[in-house]
């Protein structure tokens, strides 16, 4: 099913690891050179920056080419005609992605990724135009319109399986969010259906990935499992359902009257049960992505608990959360450090990979620039003469005034 052979992807993984080990000094230059010769593969790769730019320009070309076709060859086409042609362009884009991989041997090169992404986009828009007359969203949509997001989800899943792009799986998850709206008007049922889809996906992935523990597929499955855990959490945390949830929190706790009382409190219990479950799963499998999602959902549970209970938020809540996070990090670090060789139960706080340092360097530069703007919320109440927020251009909010 996969467009790349297992041997090619294993060879690529081996090359990446060898490069990392050589840069960390675990291998001598002579060893690296000799071992690298045995991991030759024919796939063509590029670095992340060129990959992004190639993705962008491929999108521009495909979008402009399709637009040009409509302008030159079709004057005022009907929605159905446009839809049919978009479906054809979707097929052409997908074919081009397959061709780029099979003939040019592109691997995470940007071009084949953009073509695959375009194929999903054209498929969905084309189906909407061809079969549903390009009708816009209405409160009571045509029940059969669920086929559009369903097709998007299936196509995205196929591209994930075929090409291995993790974001294609994420796209499939996003398409799934739109499905229940066509089936039921009950918000509770919609949340349950989405969570059920994700849970089914999680069960499947968990069953499959155990066979690939030390293979090249493990990283991909790890990321997908992390996405699914996060998706399940987000679908059951009713305080995170609204896109405007942050604004609503600061003004007043939300009154989620559209949900039954039992359903509401069941989800509250679940948002407290999920973080330890996810963390335990991640720790047991030594899976960093799942552990990271476990930490994220734990923080989200702390953040959403008060709105859930309808309690008043206090200005010092973020301070307490921050102190808790710092305390947990320090405790874990000390606990690891006090173990033999700085290790406990197979975990360590020491840096073992050069990649971690690269991420840290890039992250510290970027987040150091943007974080001062985002950490100073508008005042909740009280002191009308004081304003504290924003910051004209960094400086930890030093440019704003009370």
């Amino acid at each position, binding site marked *: 099913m996969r467009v790349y052979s297992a041997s090619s992807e*294993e060879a690529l993984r*081996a090359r990446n*690891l060898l490069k990392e080990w050589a840069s960390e000094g*675990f291998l001598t230059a002579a*060893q690296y050179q*000799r071992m690298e010769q*045995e991991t030759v593969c024919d796939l063509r790769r*590029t670095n*992340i*920056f060129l990959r*992004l730019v*190639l993705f962008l*320009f491929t999108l*521009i*070309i495909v979008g*402009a080419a399709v637009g040009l076709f409509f*302008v030159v060859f079709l004057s005022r086409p009907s929605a159905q005609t446009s839809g049919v042609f978009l479906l054809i362009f979707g097929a052409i884009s997908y074919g081009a992605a397959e061709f780029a991989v099979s003939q040019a041997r592109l691997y995470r090169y940007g*071009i084949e990724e953009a073509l695959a992404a375009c194929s999903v986009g054209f498929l969905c828009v084309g189906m909407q135009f061809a079969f549903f007359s390009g009708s816009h969203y209405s409160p009571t949509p045509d029940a059969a319109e669920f086929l559009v997001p369903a097709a998007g989800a299936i196509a995205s899943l196929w591209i994930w399986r075929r090409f291995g792009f993790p974001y294609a799986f994420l796209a499939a998850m996003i398409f799934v969010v739109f499905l229940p709206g066509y089936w039921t008007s009950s918000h509770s049922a919609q949340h349950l259906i989405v969570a059920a889809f994700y849970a089914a996906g999680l069960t499947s992935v968990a069953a499959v990935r155990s066979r690939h523990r*030390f293979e*090249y597929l493990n990283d991909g499955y790890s990321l997908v499992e992390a996405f699914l855990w996060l998706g399940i959490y987000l679908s059951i945390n009713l305080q995170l359902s609204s896109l405007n949830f942050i604004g609503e929190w600061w003004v007043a706790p939300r009154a989620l009257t559209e949900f039954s009382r039992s359903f509401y409190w069941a989800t509250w219990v679940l948002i407290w049960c999920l973080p330890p479950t996810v963390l335990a799963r991640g720790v047991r499998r*030594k899976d*960093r992505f799942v*552990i*990271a999602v476990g*930490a994220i959902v734990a*923080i989200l549970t702390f953040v959403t608990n008060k709105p859930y209970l309808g309690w008043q938020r206090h*200005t010092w809540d*973020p*301070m307490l*959360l*921050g102190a808790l*996070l*710092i*305390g947990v*990090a*320090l405790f874990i*670090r000390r606990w690891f450090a006090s173990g033999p060789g700085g*290790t406990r139960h*197979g975990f*360590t706080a*020491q840096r*073992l*990979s050069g990649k971690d340092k690269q991420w*840290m360097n890039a992250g*510290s*530069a*970027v*987040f*150091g620039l943007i974080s001062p703007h985002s*950490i100073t919320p508008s005042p909740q109440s*009280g002191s009308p003469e*004081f304003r*504290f927020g924003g910051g004209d*251009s*960094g*400086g*930890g909010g*030093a440019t704003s*005034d*009370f």
Partner: protein
Amino acid sequence: MTILTRLEQWKEQGIISPEQHAHLADLTRGEPCSLFLELNVLLFAGVLAFIAGLGWTVSTWSRQLGDVLVLTILSAILAACFWYCFYRAPAWSPAETTSPSLIFDYVLYLGSLTWSVDLVYLENRFRVLSGQWDLYLLATAGLFFLLAYRFDNRFVLSLALSSLAGWFGLTISHWPSHQDAAYRQYAILYGLIVGVAGVFLKHRGLKSHFFGTYLNIAANVLFWAVLSGVFNQQSYGVWFLALLAACGASLAWGLARRQFAFVAYAAVYGYVGVSSIFLRDVTGETAVLSYFVVSGIAMLIVLVQIARRFRREA
């Protein structure tokens, strides 16, 4: 063939020693599993949440708490952070130095952000400098630069650079009329100062590993400033030439130093600028779309050639 099988083969062939094999096989299996990055992210998020809550609390409850208590708390946090950093810091070195502990960088970051909160509070309550925010920002930027270089901290260096940018922005905001041209000139001046300072400090061997941060910020600010000139309705020719020169320099630097972010900057900013010039007087849909198809393909070919040439750096 999995990497574990390969390692076994390389051990049998004598390419790696049994000790190396054991170590590398453990790493492959995730034994031990490092949570270094996760703990750092947790600390960073903790500091941000703490300082956000601190600022919010101070701004909301300052009247009830009173100036003395607020300033005492802020100053105590500040003093504790800086005491810890100066007490625990290793001797200064112009080269890259590793942090003495996991939390060290974050204590300094917390101290720097608390300084900002403290300063804002002081000025707003007591009007020490009569609202001369630009002076505060300049002084803060200076302090952050000193701290960043003393303790080798990229977080604080980024704060220093953003504070300096804020000083440029605030200085302009005092002017009676806000004109794009003035902002552009100051942005270019800021970009040049940051770039030249980065080159100078690298040349002097002072924390050379910070150079990338300087260069990336300078390049992006300069590109934005020059692009805004290209979008002008009149006298955009000079800016267009400046954009071409900047793209050429960025491309040459990126290719020579294998820093492909600069190749990407040249490609994207250059394409946007050139497209705005070409499409300035073009109104027909066919012409516009044809332009994007042809120019996109041309860019793709050039970029693929560059990617092929540097394939080994992938």
